[in-house]
């Protein structure tokens, strides 16, 4: 019995004594820095290239109060996921599920805000192909939105599996790894919010 437990434990540890899944998540996060770095660099390069639509530029198009509220909600969702982890560590699965669901809802509100923002921009004539500035904006914030959507699916999957009792083994590790992904999505937005929305283009 003890040997079986030891074998099961060894399956999930590297020779450094680290969890394979957690190490994998950090390697993934390291690679994602390069992924988002490319889009942030492209945005910085093209933020002043307005093509044939000089009226569509960062000083005229962004709605800072709206995006500030979205940013606040995403930041608080990071707090939600660490509170879910704290509950998981205490073995309080009911509270863990509450925080997982709250985090997923905050992520959905953020994503809905992004969809609304894109809809408004499109209505004002700012499309993907309007100028290099608009292309780099949509690619950067769009890929971030896709990451948020994947995070919401992961959170809801954890919530649903816990609800039906299929998240009993290694709950803390799983919640921590999904939490790491969610925090990474959050820190990318921390950078995007400043670089794209707050720093003046001129």
């Amino acid at each position, binding site marked *: 019995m003890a040997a079986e437990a030891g074998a099961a434990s060894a399956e999930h540890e590297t020779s450094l004594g680290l969890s394979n899944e957690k190490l994998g998540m950090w390697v993934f996060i390291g690679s994602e820095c*390069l992924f988002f*770095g490319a889009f942030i660099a492209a945005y910085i390069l093209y933020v002043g290239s307005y093509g044939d639509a000089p009226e569509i530029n960062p000083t005229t198009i962004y709605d800072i109060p709206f995006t*500030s509220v979205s940013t606040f909600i995403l930041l*608080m969702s990071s707090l939600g996921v660490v509170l879910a982890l*704290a509950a998981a560590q205490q073995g309080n699965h009911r509270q863990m599920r509450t925080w997982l669901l709250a985090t997923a809802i905050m992520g959905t509100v953020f994503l809905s805000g992004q969809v609304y923002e894109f809809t408004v921009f499109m209505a004002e004539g700012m499309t993907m192909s309007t100028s290099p500035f608009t292309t780099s904006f949509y690619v950067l914030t769009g890929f971030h939105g896709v990451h948020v959507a994947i995070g919401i699916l992961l959170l809801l999957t954890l919530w649903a599996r816990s609800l039906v009792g299929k998240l009993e083994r290694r709950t803390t590790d799983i919640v921590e790894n999904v*939490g790491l992904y969610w925090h990474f999505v*959050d820190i990318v937005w921390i950078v995007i*919010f400043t670089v794209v929305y707050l720093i*003046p283009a001129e």
Partner: protein
Amino acid sequence: MADTEISEQDVTGQEGGPAQVPSEEPTHHPSVGEYVEIGAILAVLTALEVALYYANIAPSITIPMLIALTIAKFILVVLWFMHLRFDSKVFRRFLWAGMVLAGLLYTAAIVLVGIAAG
């Protein structure tokens, strides 16, 4: 800091014996109170950023302040919410490696494209 170092002896074992795998599992995670404090600090820093955007201050002052606030928020999330302050140094190295590589690569790209564009 609760970092755990891995010595060569820990990994290879002694006198040709089996490898001794050190436990790298975190020994400490912040309390709920600490998490809420960090969340409150993040909210205040975001409010400061937005206030700076609307303050009628020269960009030469605003931009460095905005960058400093962003770095502060980034570090708070990474060290406390992602537990890098308490976890293994190996994880920290993966994040910094990715960030340093990205920083060098894309700074070079921005400079080179800027030069090419005149």
